[in-house]
Structures are given as structure tokens and as C-alpha cells.
């Protein structure tokens, strides 16, 4: 078994263990079920680390079932794994491992169903990250989705937004069906379903209406999962309802897979036929809109999980802007920013889990000053808030500065301004919540005029058991592990260079096609040393941390935040009204989004 042949196995093993757990789970004690889940996730971490090592200078190509191409054409499905795909698989497995560690104590009574769904979720996400076939990506997209809908409704945390999972399911399924229409169009034109094969078939063609429409329809599904504006409405609802460890997977890596899928489809299949400036313009516009809407909505939230969900949407906008530059620095910077952000955001969600477990509420106003007793959690939350703004040693700093550099290098001088403002506003909101909850800063507000969804009738994770007197070590350890992970991304020497190389290999679609279809080896990359520790990077991050602190302090005292409805400008009220929680709105906006992206990319009418 070569390393390449192991790539589909990393998808199959968690699914096999999930099925096994479903068979015998009923008779296994809770500790054994936890152990089996942890073991499988650890195995997946080890395997994906092996893939990262193996993809230092090449890609792993594996034709599933042994269906290798005959005269350049094959009937089977190909898995093509480069360093970026492998590190995404590592991020998925690591987050599932830490979420399972956290869940050992977070849930009082849980049947084996929870572990089964988490392992199926792991299998689906790693499959989506590694496969090189369009329809296979759709299948793993659906598998991820189904596991996510079930996990969202698993332990209904809060009574209020129970139909959030249904909104989540309907919008994601509709996005998936739009993607299948796109895949069908490309299959009709090229007679192929693999990414490399489609790219090879489209080589040299001119982009007519069908090709552009197919591209837009295919990436719609991935962008719905990436919670990019105007497809982002479902994310905040799903987060508000899902249990905390599940939210870490949503925000940490599931949304990022959407951006990765869209970029992969473009760089391999459509890079040669669609003009790069058009696609770059479309992705940049969508990225900026997502970042701005995410940051604005994040500032207006008082429900901690919805606040973090909108902060994730804002950061997805930043990732998309960095990756849309289609330069090795940009894609590499986006990858580093993803890794750094995943650790920090997951840690924040797990802190919310502790608060919910302890005080049966995650509403900033409701928890006013009640977090004082949790000394350690206070510092973890505040450090994470600062890290979200791009505090230097953390991975978020590396990603942010590389992203800003890439945007400036490709001529978009507004890039650093957007990055600084968005990260400052989101981090500032998180710090404001921290000041309110843990330090009791600002006036105590009566609850009836607090904006946002009615969240007073929350039940803690498990109503009937006594609330935990102290936070179990596993939960705190999970939070600290995540923060150390983000720190490691920032501290690893020459990470910027490795990440830029991975970005260069990711962008080299022609080499991907050549290596996938013929057993040629990958072309060597010319090494160029890149560093994130530049003066501008440090200056910009200092500026954003400072701005975040100002936003935090200012907004704790200002009253209008708590009465955002009346005083806020009509524009803000308009944006709030759009986030209505009605599935009909989300579907209407999905169609407008499809049309918008098509207009941005420019549909030739021939």
C-alpha cells in the first residue's frame, strides 16, 4: 500500500468505525465509546500528517478501485492530494479530536449516536478535502450536510431557534442541487466528471455561456457551504442551535472547505478557459461584501454564539479576498489565516460551551458580570479576542499580514484597510462581550430591551443534571490545546515560505492535470522565501489590536448597542431586518446570489 493508496482509506476508516459503533454502541459503556471516537480521530490526524509529509514536493494521486486511466481516459474516481488538501484534512481531524475530548465532559448523557454522527462528519469533510472528482465532492458535501443537520438538532440547546436546522438543511440542499445542475452541464459539454479531466477537456476552448453558467452553478453550492454573502444567512441560525463542540467544526473548518472547494474547481478545471480578471473581480467583490456584512452584524449581536458565527462570516470574507488574488502569497496567506482562525474561533466556542453549562445562558446582557468567578476562562477569552485581531505570535497574524501583502502586491491598496477594520470590529465585539461578561463593565441593562432573538428561555446542555461546580479539566484542556495550535501556526519558523509554496502548488492547475492524468511527477517549484514578520505587517496588526480595544471599551459604555433597534441608522436596521430567520428569504437571496455572481463573472451571450 503506497501512501497515495491510503488517501481514500482515511475517508473509509472513520465511516467504518461509525457503522461499527452504531451496531455495538448500545452495549458499550460511555468511556469505551469516547475512547473509540478519540482513537479514530487520532488515527485520522496521524494519517493526514503522513500525507502532509508525503506531499512536500509532489501530489498524491490515487485512482479509487484501481481504475487507472487507459490512453489518458478512465472510468473511475481520482483522489489528488496536495499539501493544502492534506493540511485541511489534518485541520478537520484535529478539530474533531479536540471536539470529542471536550464532549467527554460537556454532555451528561449521550448515546452512541453522537459519536457516530461526529465520525460520519469527519469522513465527509476529509473526503471533500481530498477528492478530485466533481460529483464525489457533491456526495461528500451532502454527507457533511446530513451529519451537520443531525448534529445541529442533536441536543436542542436553545428552545427558540429550533427551525434553524431546517433552514440550514433546506438552503444547503438547494445549493447542492444547483451544483448538480452545474455538474450536469459540464458533463454534457466535456463528457467528464473529474476536476483534472474537465480541465483537460476544456483546455483551449473559449468560454461560452454554458461554461460560465456551469462554473457559477457549481461554485454556488460550495459558496453556500462557505457562508459567503448572500448565501450566509443560515450559518448564524445553525450556530445558535448546535451544541458548542459542533459549532467548533462548523466555524473552524466546514465553512473553509466551501472556499477551498470553489478555489479548487476554478484553479484546476476553469483556470484555462475563464479569464482570470473576471473571476478575481467576482470573488473579491463577494469577499468584501461578506466581510463587511459579517463584521457589521457581529457588532450588533448580544447572543455570544451568533456573534461568533457572524465573526466567522466576516473572516470567511477575508479568506476569500486573500485567496482571490490568485497569487501564491495570497492563497498561502489565506491558508495560514484559516489555520490560525480555526484554533481561536473553536476555543471561543468552547468557552461559550462552558458559560452555557455554568449559567444556562449565552446572552451577553444576561450574563452581565456573572463570569467573574471563572478566572482562567476570563483570560482565555480575552487572549482569544486579541488573537482574533491578529496579535503577532498567533497564526491569525501570519495569515493577516500575508493576505494584506498579497492584496497590495496585486494592486488592491484598500486590502489592508479592509483587513484591519474587519478584524478590529469583530475582535472588538468579542472583547466587549468579554468585558461585560467577565468584568461586569458598563451598566447592567434590564433584559427586556436587549436586541436579538429572545434567548432568555435557554436550557443548559442537559436540563436535568446539576450544573458543573467547576469546569472539568478536559474542557479547559481542549480550549488551551486549540489556542496552542493557533500559536504554533504563528511561531513555526519559515511557515510563511512553506505556506506560499503550498499556495503555488495549489494554483498550478496545469501541473495538477498533468500529474493526475499521466503518472508524471510534479514540476519543481522555484523556492522564494516569504516572511510575515515585515514592518507593515507588525504595524497593521498593532493598529488592528488597538482599534479592537477602542471598539471594545467604547461599545461597553455606549447604550445604543443594547437598544440597536431605535437609535441605529436605518441602514443598520435594514441589514438586521434582512436577517429574518425565514427560509423563504434565504432561498430568495440564494437565487439573487447566483444571478449576482454570474453577472460579476460576465456571461457571454453567445
Amino acid at each position, binding site marked *: 500500500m503506497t501512501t497515495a493508496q491510503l488517501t481514500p482509506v482515511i475517508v473509509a476508516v472513520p465511516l467504518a468505525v461509525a457503522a461499527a459503533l452504531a451496531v455495538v454502541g448500545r452495549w458499550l459503556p460511555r468511556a469505551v465509546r469516547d475512547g473509540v471516537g478519540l482513537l479514530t480521530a487520532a488515527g485520522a490526524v496521524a494519517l493526514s500528517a503522513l500525507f502532509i509529509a508525503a506531499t512536500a514536493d509532489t501530489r498524491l494521486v490515487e485512482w479509487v478501485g484501481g481504475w487507472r486511466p487507459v490512453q489518458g481516459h478512465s472510468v473511475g474516481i481520482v483522489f489528488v492530494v496536495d499539501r493544502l488538501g492534506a493540511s485541511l484534512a489534518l485541520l478537520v481531524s484535529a478539530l474533531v479530536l479536540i471536539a470529542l475530548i471536550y464532549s467527554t465532559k460537556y454532555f451528561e448523557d449521550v448515546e452512541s449516536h453522537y459519536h457516530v454522527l461526529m465520525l460520519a462528519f469527519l469522513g465527509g469533510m476529509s473526503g471533500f478535502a481530498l477528492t478530485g472528482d466533481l460529483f464525489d465532492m457533491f456526495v461528500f458535501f451532502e454527507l457533511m450536510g446530513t451529519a451537520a443537520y443531525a448534529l445541529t438538532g442533536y441536543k436542542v440547546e436553545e428552545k427558540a431557534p429550533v427551525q434553524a436546522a431546517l433552514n440550514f438543511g433546506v438552503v444547503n440542499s438547494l445549493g447542492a442541487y444547483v451544483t448538480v445542475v452545474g455538474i450536469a452541464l459540464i458533463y454534457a*459539454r466535456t463528457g467528464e466528471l473529474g476536476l483534472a479531466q474537465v480541465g483537460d477537456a476544456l483546455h483551449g476552448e473559449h468560454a461560452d455561456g454554458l461554461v460560465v453558467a456551469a462554473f457559477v452553478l457549481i461554485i454556488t453550492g460550495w459558496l453556500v457551504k462557505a457562508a459567503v454573502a448572500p448565501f450566509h444567512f443560515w450559518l448564524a441560525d445553525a450556530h445558535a442551535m448546535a451544541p458548542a463542540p459542533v459549532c467548533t467544526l462548523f466555524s473552524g473548518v466546514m465553512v473553509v472547505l466551501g472556499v477551498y472547494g470553489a478555489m479548487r474547481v476554478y484553479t484546476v478545471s476553469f483556470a484555462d478557459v475563464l479569464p482570470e480578471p473576471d473571476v478575481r473581480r467576482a470573488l473579491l467583490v463577494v469577499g468584501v461584501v461578506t466581510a463587511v456584512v459579517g463584521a457589521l452584524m457581529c457588532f450588533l449581536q448580544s447572543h455570544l454564539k451568533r456573534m461568533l458565527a457572524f465573526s466567522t462570516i466576516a473572516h470567511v470574507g477575508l479568506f476569500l479576498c486573500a485567496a482571490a488574488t490568485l497569487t501564491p502569497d495570497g492563497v498561502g496567506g489565506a491558508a495560514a489565516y484559516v489555520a490560525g482562525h480555526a484554533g481561536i474561533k473553536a476555543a471561543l466556542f468552547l468557552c461559550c460551551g462552558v458559560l452555557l453549562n455554568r449559567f444556562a445562558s449565552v446572552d451577553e446582557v444576561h450574563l452581565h458580570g456573572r463570569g467573574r468567578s471563572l478566572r482562567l476562562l476570563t483570560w482565555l477569552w480575552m487572549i482569544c479576542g486579541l488573537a482574533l485581531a491578529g496579535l503577532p505570535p498567533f497564526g491569525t497574524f501570519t495569515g493577516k499580514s500575508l493576505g494584506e501583502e498579497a492584496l497590495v502586491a496585486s494592486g488592491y491598496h484598500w486590502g489592508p484597510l479592509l483587513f484591519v477594520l474587519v478584524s478590529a470590529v469583530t475582535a472588538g465585539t468579542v472583547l466587549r462581550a468579554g468585558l461585560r461578561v467577565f468584568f461586569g463593565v458598563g451598566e447592567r441593562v434590564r433584559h427586556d430591551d436587549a436586541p436579538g432573538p429572545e434567548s432568555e428561555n435557554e436550557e443548559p446542555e442537559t436540563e436535568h443534571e446539576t450544573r458543573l461546580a467547576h469546569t472539568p479539566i478536559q474542557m479547559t484542556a481542549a480550549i488551551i490545546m486549540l489556542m496552542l495550535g493557533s500559536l504554533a501556526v504563528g511561531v513555526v519558523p519559515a511557515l510563511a515560505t512553506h505556506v506560499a509554496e503550498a499556495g503555488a502548488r495549489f494554483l498550478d492547475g496545469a501541473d495538477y492535470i498533468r500529474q493526475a492524468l499521466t503518472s508524471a511527477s510534479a514540476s519543481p517549484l522555484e523556492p522564494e522565501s516569504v516572511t510575515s514578520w515585515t514592518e507593515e505587517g507588525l504595524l497593521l496588526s498593532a493598529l488592528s489590536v488597538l482599534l479592537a480595544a477602542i471598539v471594545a471599551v467604547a461599545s461597553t459604555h455606549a447604550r445604543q448597542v443594547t437598544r440597536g433597534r431605535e437609535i441605529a441608522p436605518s441602514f443598520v436596521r435594514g441589514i438586521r431586518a434582512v436577517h429574518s430567520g425565514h427560509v423563504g428569504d434565504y432561498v430568495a437571496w440564494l*437565487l439573487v446570489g447566483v444571478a449576482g455572481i454570474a453577472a460579476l463573472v460576465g456571461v457571454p*451571450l453567445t
Partner: protein
Amino acid sequence: MSRRLRLAVFGLGAVLTGALLVIAFTGLPEFGTSHHPYGDRAVHTAVDEQKTSNAVSSVNFDQRAIDTMGEEFILFTAVIGTLVLLRELRREVEEGEVETELRRSPRGLSSTAYLTYAMLGVTTLTGLYVVAHGHLSPGGGFQGGVVLGTAIHLLYVGGGYRAIRKARPLHLYEIFDALGAGGFVVLGLAGAIVGGDLLANVLPLGALGDILSAGQVELLNALVGLEVASAVIVILARFLEQYAEVRIQGTAR
């Protein structure tokens, strides 16, 4: 947003998306075109190399087997999700209470009962036939599983809810569902160990048209049939339970 605004936004999106689709459809090849490269390759591989008469089953279970494994697990995860969600709702009605109320459910006409018992045998046989001949004639694990899944519910028509509860211990079918999905992956991993690649068809291929041909396709069809049948039974059972619960609240009120 108000209903009117929502309709306006939808109208705009629908018209533009519709235009996009029409532009795309004009670029499609002529309907009924003879240019199907992948299809021709798949048929050639299925019939000549893999000795599978039903090319669709060969594509499903041999050439693109990991697609079907993914679909398997979507089905499996959806069943687990439904169980989890409906288990949340089931706590209100105790098991015994359902039993007592339903003993009084009106007995069907005896002639209906006899007809359904007869049809139960025929339907189960048909389902098994469709699953077993998946690699030869149209059908296979998915279709046969649905037929098998609905066969048991003939008992409900004939003997009422009590008859069906006796005929299908639910936990058993939840295990069958997991066994079907797990078996699929284990067979795939065995193929990886023996043949090097996951889901490699290492079983003997036999001759075209034989009952024992096409290697793993037949076995995977059986596993899928097991899983789809138990999935349909489990889901219908859970929803029937909800319905039975209604009858209790009906009588209790």
C-alpha cells in the same frame, strides 16, 4: 422582510437565474446526441471487462464505488439523525401505553388480512429477486431495498399496528441498517488490503449473464439492499409511532 419584499427579491433572482439557465441550455449538445464518451467507456468496461450485464450497477458498485459508499453513509446518517430527533419527541408517551391502546385498534376484515399475508410473501420474494439480480437486470440494492422495506407494512394494512410491532423488533433493524453500511466499507477496505486500492473488485468476475458474475457488485447490492430495507422500516416505524401516539392523545382527550 415582508412577504411582498420577499416575493420581489425572489422574482428578481428567479428571472435572472432562469435567464442564466436558458443561456446555458442553448450551449448543450443536441438532444439524443450520440457523443457519450464516458458512457461508451463505462459500457465497454462493464460488459467486456467486468462481466456485468447491468452497466448501471457496474458504474454504481464497481467503477464509481466510492460515490455509492458516500451515498450509503448519507442514508445511514439521515436515519441516525431521524432516530435522534424523533427519540427526543417520543419521551412523552410510555411504551406500555401505546401497547394497551392499540390492542383495541379495529381488526381489519379477515379477507383483507389473508390477502395481505399472501401478498407479503410475494412482495418479499420480489424484493429479494430485485436485489439479487441487480447486476443482471434493472434493479439492485437500492430498488430492492425499497420494495423489501415496504413489504412488511402490508402487515399493518392487514393486522393493524399490533401485528407490525410484533413482526419487526426495531432495535434489530437499526443494527441491520448499520451492518449494511459497515459491511460496504469493510468490503471496500478488504479490497484495499488485497487489491491495493480501496473498493477494488478483487472477487472472481465469472461469465456475463451468470448469477455469480461481476465480482463485488452482487455482494454490495445485497449489503445496500439490507441497509435500504432496514432504513425504510426504521423511518416508517418511527413515524408510525408518532401517529400511534396521536391516537392515544385522541382517545385521552
